[in-house]
């Protein structure tokens, strides 16, 4: 079936089996291999993309459910010549080792900052009514769905804090 996806600002028509996951559509049908397949179960976060402004695990959703949706992958955030602030922060802080989780981390962190800005509480928030500070505990809790087996977590948190404009460390 045909599905129209607005990917990284560009309309793409996907012709695929309706059971095709968004991740497989990106990687296999649309040639966007930046989003990675770590577990295909929605548990590692390597496939995180941003759909209509919200971060989701692209392996847990079917591409055909996103007709007309705006999808941003790591390729759409920036290019080597023009990095997004989050991408630049990951370079500055070495927020990776093997790099396999990195696209998911960056997409996830980018959308996460927006969630905080909108006052969405997390398990680590002291106040459920919003206005939370982006502490290390907030970042860690909100990023706990993006696994990094190299455990580059200290640098990942530094990068996110930096991108959020709170580079006190």
């Amino acid at each position, binding site marked *: 079936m045909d599905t129209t996806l607005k990917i990284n600002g560009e309309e793409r028509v996907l012709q695929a089996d309706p059971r095709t996951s968004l991740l497989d559509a990106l990687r296999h049908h649309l040639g966007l291999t*930046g989003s990675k397949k770590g577990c295909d179960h929605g548990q590692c976060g390597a496939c995180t993309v941003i759909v209509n402004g919200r971060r989701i695990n692209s392996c847990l959703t079917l591409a055909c459910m996103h007709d007309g949706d705006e999808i941003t992958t790591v390729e759409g955030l920036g290019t080597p010549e023009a990095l997004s602030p989050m991408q630049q922060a990951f370079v500055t802080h*070495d927020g990776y080792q093997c790099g*396999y989780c*990195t696209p998911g981390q960056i997409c996830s962190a980018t959308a996460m900052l927006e969630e905080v800005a909108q006052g969405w509480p997390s398990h680590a928030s002291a106040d459920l009514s919003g206005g939370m500070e982006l502490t290390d505990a907030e970042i860690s809790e909100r990023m706990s769905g*993006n696994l990094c087996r190299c455990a580059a977590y200290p640098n990942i*948190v530094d990068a996110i804090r930096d991108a959020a404009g709170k580079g006190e460390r």
Partner: protein
Amino acid sequence: MSTARALPHEAALLHVTGAARYVDDIPVPAGCLHLAFGLSPVAHGTIEALDLAAVRAAPGAVMVITPEMLPHENDVSPSAHDEPLLAEHMVHYVGQPLFAVLAESHGAARRAARLGRSEITERPALLDLDAAIAADARFEEGPRVYTKGDAAAALAGAPHRVSGVMEIGGQEHFYLEGQAALALPLDNGDMLIHSSSQHPTEIQHKVAEALGMPMHAVRVEVRRMGGGFGGKESQGNALAVACAVAARLSGRACKMRYDRDDDMIITGKRHDMRIGYDVGFDALGRIEGLSFVHHLRCGWAQDLSLPVADRAMLHADNAYHLEHVRIESHRMRTNTQSATAFRGFGGPQGMLGIERVMDEIAHALGRDPLDVRRANFYADAPVNRMPAPQAEPEASAAPPPPPPSSPPHGHAAERDLASRGAAGAPEVEPGDDREDGGRPEDSDGARREGAGTQTTPYHMPVTDFMLNRLCADLAERADYHGRRARIARWNADNPLLRRGIALTPVKFGISFTLTHLNQAGALVHVYQDGSVQLNHGGTEMGQGLFTKVAQIAAERFGIGMEAIRVTATDTAKVPNTSATAASSGTDLNGMAVLAACETLCGRIAALLAQLHGCPADDVRFAGGEVIAGNVRHSFAEAVQIAYQARVSLSATGFYSTPGIAWDRIAGKGRPFYYFAYGAAVSEVVIDTLTGENRILRCDIVHDAGASLNPALDIGQIEGGYVQGAGWLTTEELVWDDKGRLTTHAPSTYKIPACSDRPPIFNVTLWDEPNPAATIRRSKAVGEPPLMLGISVLMALSDAAASCGPHYPALDAPATPERIRAAVMRARG
């Protein structure tokens, strides 16, 4: 200077934009087929029949490969030729590949593979250590035993004595990029393999063997891996061989990528291990005699289990000088996945045994465990003899290795010489008069008074020890004593939550214990525009090896990092490589790269010296220039002059580690070029009602020698600690009574997440040049920090011990259940 700087990762821009290619991201030719294995549902049995009609008829299925279709060898073992690619007659574990499906898509192949029906007559399966011990199912004819002194007599005469048994769980690698391979058939029957492998030469060897062709017909390329951790030293063989055979049979490109669940069910993991201990000690906790018995669960095939078990024995002393010690190691065969290499390669398990012993001695005597540890440390080497970093270590200083004392045995084509699983040619014992140039100890022989010649249980002198100084520094930085006192007061006031703290040291031996693997090659090209392309035998899996070797080359040529391109590891560029393993990647390949750079600089310098009438030794490469006497050329100009003078601008480099020799049967010799050191203080809190726990703070001081890149080294240290802590706390592997792994996805197997790292995490490099003449006097840093995670287990033990008078005997992994049980044991 390009080294000793925190330069960013060479692929930084690629990683953050999603442009870094892993095997599954490589564009494939039209018609590429995808493979999936059909797996054994039975742990042990005789294959009576396979019904694969439904597999062949499945949508998208193109071909099914069964063992009789294989063109040549049916083996993917790195050691004993005991690991068929596809099971024949017998199955030995749940998850063993029975057949392979080729289909038009990855999904079609997986769906088709599930349709296979096997008729297997079940036989009794040995699933755990108890069953294997009862059946005496083992690798090797009997246990390996290393001895020093007389442990039995020392034990009998000791004033205090405790004994016990510790169970240590295994660990799934969970490299975020699963195993993957892509085979492209070339003309003349040759094969190009892209593999996510730490050991391209091993892949080349096994593919050549499977195709019945010489190794020159197979080229293996590895650009990068999405994590390896040892899990891609031998476990990628099956995928690469299957793809190569499928490409041969189909004439099409073939790709295979394990789904996560399949990956965890099929591939080997860290060895789980049981350590029995019997220790005699004095009133201060100094060990007088110690006996260890190791039982490792090796799984169904030998793989790398023998050297893994050896390394566990080689780290049974950790940082402690033992006069009378006996270590007995049993390598048990079970009907489970074949346990394999994992960061530390048995060292972590062996080390954990003696850390448990220290903890229990301290408990028995009512002393601070740190005092007991210090009382048993090796003596530090004198500080004042540490050499300054050499400007140019002699990259080719290695004397030629001694020839094997007996000719190689077995058929050359079948011998897997480049594998750690290879039975090495007998080593030449190092004599007291060895003349090796790289011997770390200097001739002054000065040691702390009364220390004597301190040797390991395998009779290697320990001459570079530093943990007395390093741990004193760490204890002060971390305020260990002050916090211990505060924790005791806090615990006295808190009946439900309890805190614990521990400082544990690491001494880790650096070198492949199979001595001949300690060699590396490099190939460096300088182009007319002054850009440099370099290649070496090591593989990049996130540890930063490519960045470090590029720094080394940039520094020698005196040019910027942007002028250097490190290309994918390629068996056609540098042959006969060793696995990127044993923490040796930079030590070996960095030296080989430097040797090649020296050759090229020497050629250019000789030419310019002749042209400008100055001594060749005075020609310098710095700041993007080549300076010969009063004349300065840009590096590119110098290169163009050399090119026009018909000077070769391509060179190979080679390095072999000097002065090591090891007899693994006798347990004697010098297996390691040097030791890497470190120590960690962890503080934890446990909930005594539920066993829930977390790390509150971690302080680490780690020895990376004169660090080549502090940012990369600190990353390895932080990551190693967290991975080690995960191994010993949340990462629990569970098999059911049929031998099925029930923890085969991240839903049931818990690796550390961002919120699991300690909220206070202080890492300091012990910045002191390596006494051994390594590349820029740096030290290997890949594996040693994993063992810093042992401090977490010991801190949890400390917290549990605060609950009552008895020793909590906390095993690993310290899941909430085990912590709760340990609390109950402490209370008695």
